[in-house]
């Protein structure tokens, strides 16, 4: 033997996986979603992805070059960041958006914190949230040629129904990479098979989100609604590819479980209560920030330091049953109590609501003495409501019809209508209004059923000085003006509450549209 033998400390063998091979596995797993997105939204979306990837790699190269560090673009992590960011953009954005986003992701979120492995949040999501805040309009524009309509989550949020199967396959609207749950799941299975990720984060994330939605989103355990929420929007992309990002998720196994549960709850909160229909991106970056804390409280106990470690298997498993049983017990009792309270109060609440409504109808349609369901009008409003929940092509904003009633005189003749409309565009959430009209569509009265606007501003809508502007007018459509109204069809907007004024006006117009359309 010429030459010397290598001497080094054990072990002397290494697995074949490298950081780069893992990154390329992630990129491969994103291929189905990428191809689907390009097919769905057109070649321009491919251009967006290329710019995002290109600028991610370029930013990394430039930064490392300028700071005299080792060039690490070959490890594939910039590629994955760029691709993920691109997949999180709508297919309508101008090309400077992916360029700016990728540069932000690589420079501000990753390199400034020390490069690969040191970033405290997912770079692609950090950049997406930066873009969402800075360029809300551009980032919310989903009107691509050939793909029309609101995103499924927006439809769900405004109370509409969506086709779950279409959402699962991806025949809906959204960002380039998020639409097809199927393509994303195929990628997820590839990652599981390649052992790049474990099932824990995606599955627990989706489950805890579904449980939260079932409990608090107001639809109960309706599987159609839950599946629609799960397969729509960024949840699949987030759960499979973003939440599992190694660098920004906890390293401990229990930490991953806690993290996934938090993600589900936070996404639920943001989607249900937040102003936007989406919540995945913010949920993930917020949880990213909590990772050090999660790791701290979930440090595993070293082998052999458990209580009764010397005693063998049985006793340890007994120990685990107790808290688990206690948890299940507490949950069951709490659930039962909630159910009982609900059952007991259901009747009285419904009665009270009915009375309030009847009184409101009488107030807005004084010429009638009795009310009954207006079948013809119901059919008509249904005919102008699209499958996705939008009314009359969305010209009144996010408005839905909540039931129509015909007002009868003493002889049983129809003398007017009451149309209930709800707009989702109030400043503080939904506003429900009963609009009374005669058979020709002349307004006879108006009452608020639900309104939660800002006191002193939007809440002034309930004052006579504002809402009587709508009453006793025979017009086709009301128009909002600043300052005093000069014509019958003009409504003087409330100062400091233009959102509320517009929402109410749209809702009243929707009601007029229904009755006038019927009489034509």
């Amino acid at each position, binding site marked *: 033997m010429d030459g010397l033998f*290598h001497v080094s*400390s054990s072990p002397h063998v290494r697995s074949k996986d*490298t950081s780069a091979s893992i990154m390329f596995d992630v990129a491969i797993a994103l291929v189905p979603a990428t191809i689907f997105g390009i097919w769905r939204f057109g070649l321009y979306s491919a251009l967006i992805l290329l710019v995002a990837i290109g600028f991610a790699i370029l930013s990394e190269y430039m930064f490392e070059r300028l700071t005299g560090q080792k060039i690490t673009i070959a490890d594939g992590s910039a590629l994955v960041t760029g691709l993920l960011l691109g997949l999180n953009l709508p297919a309508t954005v101008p090309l400077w958006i992916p360029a700016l986003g990728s540069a932000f992701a690589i420079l501000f979120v990753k390199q400034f914190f020390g490069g690969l492995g040191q970033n405290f949040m997912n770079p692609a999501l950090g950049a997406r949230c930066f873009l969402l805040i800075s360029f809300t309009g551009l980032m919310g524009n989903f009107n691509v040629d050939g793909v029309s309509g609101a995103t499924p989550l927006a439809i769900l949020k405004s109370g509409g129904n969506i086709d779950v199967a279409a959402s699962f396959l991806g025949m809906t609207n959204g960002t380039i990479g998020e639409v097809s749950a199927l393509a994303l799941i195929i990628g997820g299975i590839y990652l599981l098979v390649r052992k790049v990720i474990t099932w824990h984060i995606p599955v627990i994330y989706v489950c805890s989100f579904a449980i939260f939605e079932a409990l608090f989103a107001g639809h109960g355990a309706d599987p159609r609604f839950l599946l629609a929420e799960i397969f729509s929007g960024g949840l699949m992309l987030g759960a499979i590819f973003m939440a599992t990002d190694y*660098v920004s998720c906890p390293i401990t196994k229990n930490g991953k479980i806690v993290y996934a549960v938090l993600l589900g709850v936070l996404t639920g909160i943001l989607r249900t209560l937040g102003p936007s229909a989406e919540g995945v991106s913010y949920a993930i970056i917020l949880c990213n920030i909590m990772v050090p804390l999660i790791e701290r409280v979930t440090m595993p106990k*070293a082998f*052999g330091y458990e209580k009764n470690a010397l005693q063998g298997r049985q006793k340890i498993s007994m120990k685990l049953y107790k808290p688990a049983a206690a948890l299940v017990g507490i949950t069951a009792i709490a659930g039962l109590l909630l159910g009982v309270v609900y059952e007991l109060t259901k009747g009285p609440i419904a009665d009270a609501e009915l009375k309030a409504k009847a009184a409101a109808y009488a107030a807005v349609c004084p010429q009638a003495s009795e009310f009954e369901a207006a079948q013809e009008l119901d059919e008509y409003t249904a005919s102008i409501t699209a499958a996705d929940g939008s009314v009359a092509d969305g010209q009144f904003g996010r408005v839905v019809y909540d039931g129509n009633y015909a007002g009868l005189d003493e002889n049983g003749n129809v003398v007017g209508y009451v149309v209930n409309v709800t707009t989702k565009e109030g400043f503080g959430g939904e506003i429900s209004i009963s609009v009374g009209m005669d058979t020709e569509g002349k307004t006879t009265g108006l009452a608020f059923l639900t309104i939660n606007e800002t006191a002193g501003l939007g809440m002034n809508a309930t004052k006579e000085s504002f809402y009587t502007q709508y009453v006793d007018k025979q017009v086709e459509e009301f128009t909002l003006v600043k300052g005093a109204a000069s014509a019958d069809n003009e409504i003087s907007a409330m100062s400091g509450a233009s959102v509320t004024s517009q929402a109410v006006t749209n809702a009243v117009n929707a009601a007029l549209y229904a009755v006038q359309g019927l009489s034509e």
Partner: protein
Amino acid sequence: MKLATFRGGVHPDDGKSLAKDCPIQVLLPGNELVFPLSQHIGAPAVPVVKKKDTVLMGQRIAEAGGFVSANIVSSVSGVVKNIEPRLTVSGVKVNSIIIENDGNYTPVEGLGAKRDLDSMSKQEILTAVKDAGIVGLGGAGFPTHVKLSPKDPDAIDYIIVNGAECEPYLTADYRLMIEQPEKLVGGLKAMLKLFDNAKGVIAIENNKPDAIASVQKAAAGEERIEVRPLKTKYPQGAERNLIFAVTGRKINSTKLPADAGCIVDNVDTVVSTYMAVAESTPLMRRIFTATGEGIEKPANYEVKIGMSFAEIAEASGGLKEGTTKIIAGGPMMGMAMSSLDVPVGKTNSALLALLKDEAAEYEETACINCGRCVDVCPSRLVPKMMMDAAERFDKESFIALNGMECYECGSCTYACPAKRPLTQGFKQMRQAVMADRRKKK
């Protein structure tokens, strides 16, 4: 039944097919044999011969130097050439007795005399083991007679024979279980005689079905002995994991197996015990695998303790051109050597020659926090954080992260995609912390 196992671990390429089907051949040594005085854990042995003394095969040449220490026996007959420091596998020079082999293998009186196990008392068995200089032949080298003398012998309810042989490439224990299962069972019976409440479990990984069958056959009819298949996974044969797999009990670094009612011994240790007790033959030989892609003709041998690695390599056709690394032991925990001119000690079970040094092949990259080290750690540690502490040489954090529970199995380093030298960092930290602790005493 679910296979007994532990949580964590890795599945490296096992490389066992190279030597697995090679029957054990007896290999005779050359002219010079080297017996380092430290071939075990504990105090070095003290020579009882001096330069130019004539020794016989089986004669004691050094005596246990303390309670935790072991005798050393000459494996050949000949003349003591010198007592001087010699290079050992660990890369350091250790004071050693050098014996010139006369080639006659003249035995001391009584060597090989058959004894009836049934008529022997507990004390006689213990004395035989102690005199024979038997230590843990799996690699740790803990003196066996000390292990067999726990404080409370009645509290021992398991004697576990470690037949896992989870290190890749190694096949010595496997061959021994196939070829001499009756000696294995005999040795276990001798040990069981010492512990009235104990049950013997021979634990074997399920990638060796013929070894399981062979031992099962030899143990047929033995009420106190059970053969237990284990899931094939590295490091299944690590003492703590093996105890957990067999009994569900968990010990940490501050405990001894006896605290969990267990005594764990390697296959060759148990066979050597049988030979010492029933055949009056002290520890002079061991079963040894010469293997790896760099060995011309991989083989399993019965070698004389004290002969050199170079002689074994030669008997196996030599090293192939391009061999970059030679290792005493397996690829996961074995020691890389700079030279073949070192003696086979009691705890050296293999010569592994590799053409490729994977450790040098990959470049270290940034940790991406993937958590594989956490998943594979059998001690349930967080190697990533321990390594961050080791890089800062932050002993306090290292201890707080239970770094001292690491037994350097190497699983994390094997699994790490960033190719961080985790185990290496931990070795250094552990040594530093242990040195500090000794200073405080």
